[in-house]
């Protein structure tokens, strides 16, 4: 995409020390950090259709190179991740320049997130979302006992690869509850039902930005994204909050709050 190439060059000339984007290497699209406007990698930059957790990569880059400024190519999901990570004090938006790319209609339909475009679009055309709710609807049509059996079956395929956590742009803790032996027995597959998956779902509540990378990385095909999306629906319903949307408003689960918050709850 020649457009992207000129944007990368422009941002590097305009003061960004490096541009985190994607490049096509031998047919495979993967993240690349371009530090030089004359880099041969510039010829390879491409939006492509493989998504990687750029937000998570940036957490490390900002720490590793504390005096550098980065430009970054963001889809809607990447932008939401950075916005939320900023409120959680994991990235400093002041040191970032976001270059937005809108997902194509095809990509948006295949992925199904709520907002397949960033707030500022430099590349691509904005298309509206078509979020699928099939899994959530299916689960909600079941009785309590059927729901539990349904999830038990899904989680029984889990081989504890931790891929859902490892790829998640919003998972950055140094100590992870999933590795706490009192909560999840180590060395056993499938992991304890339902603690492993509930712990993750709860940690995602008010935090998940619905990128769907977890589900893409899950070798077992567990509908994790629907589980976490339901958690965001609950947050919105109970506490009027959806992660990644506002740059100022923080998750109500991250501070004590006021009596009004409780009143909302009791309605």
């Amino acid at each position, binding site marked *: 995409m020649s457009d992207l190439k000129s944007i990368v060059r422009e941002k590097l000339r305009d003061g960004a020390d490096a541009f985190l984007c994607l490049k096509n290497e031998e047919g495979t699209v*993967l993240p690349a950090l371009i530090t030089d406007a004359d880099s041969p990698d510039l010829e390879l930059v491409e939006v492509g259709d493989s*998504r*990687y957790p750029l937000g998570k990569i940036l957490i490390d880059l900002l720490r*590793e190179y*504390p005096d550098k400024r980065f430009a970054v190519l963001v889809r809607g999901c990447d932008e939401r991740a950075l916005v939320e990570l900023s409120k959680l004090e994991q990235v400093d938006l002041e040191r970032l320049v976001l270059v937005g790319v809108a997902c194509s209609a095809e990509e948006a339909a295949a992925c199904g997130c709520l907002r397949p475009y960033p707030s500022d679009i430099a590349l691509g055309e904005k298309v509206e979302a078509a979020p699928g709710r099939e899994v959530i609807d299916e689960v909600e049509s079941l009785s309590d006992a059927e729901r539990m059996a349904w999830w038990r079956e899904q989680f029984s395929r889990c*081989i504890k*690869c931790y*891929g859902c956590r490892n790829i998640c742009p919003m998972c950055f803790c140094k100590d992870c509850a999933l590795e706490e032996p009192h909560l999840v027995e180590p060395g056993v597959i499938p992991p304890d039902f339902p603690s492993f998956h509930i712990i993750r779902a709860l940690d995602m509540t008010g935090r998940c930005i619905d990128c769907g990378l977890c589900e893409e990385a899950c070798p077992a095909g567990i509908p994790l994204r629907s589980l976490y999306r339901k958690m965001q629906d609950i947050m919105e319903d109970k506490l009027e909050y959806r992660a990644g949307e506002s740059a100022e408003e923080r998750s109500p689960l991250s501070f004590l709050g006021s009596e009004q918050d409780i009143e909302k709850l009791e309605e």
Partner: protein
Amino acid sequence: MAENGSEMNYRLVPSTCVYCGTGCGVLLEVTGDRLSGTLPQKDHPVSKGALCIKGWSVHEFVYSERRLTKPMVRSGEVLVETDWEAALAAVADGLSAARDKHGPDSVGFFASARCTNEENYLLQKLARAVVGTNNVDHCARL
């Protein structure tokens, strides 16, 4: 943390997981001059963007304190560090001595299901063309 003004480097290097025979596609994450993580290769024909726990942590053993970093030769009960020149000479002497004294078939080679095709090829070529024995095998059976 890198020192101020140092060159920035962040790369993902496509490779293949080296644990089991499935051969999943991994991207080795390099920050500065060190391995910093592993990501799945999204478009890999076998693993299709997924990995098991071993794949996700395949970079971890590389900086183990138990890595061998120096050639060593035995001196009595202990192994002592030496340089490559001396270590290779010791191996060449050890293998040649057995071959010259007891014949090529007194020497054996274990190739490795953990090493590359190129390395295994070279080892069997060494056994066959240089030492003159077909005594070369690896742990395929184990």
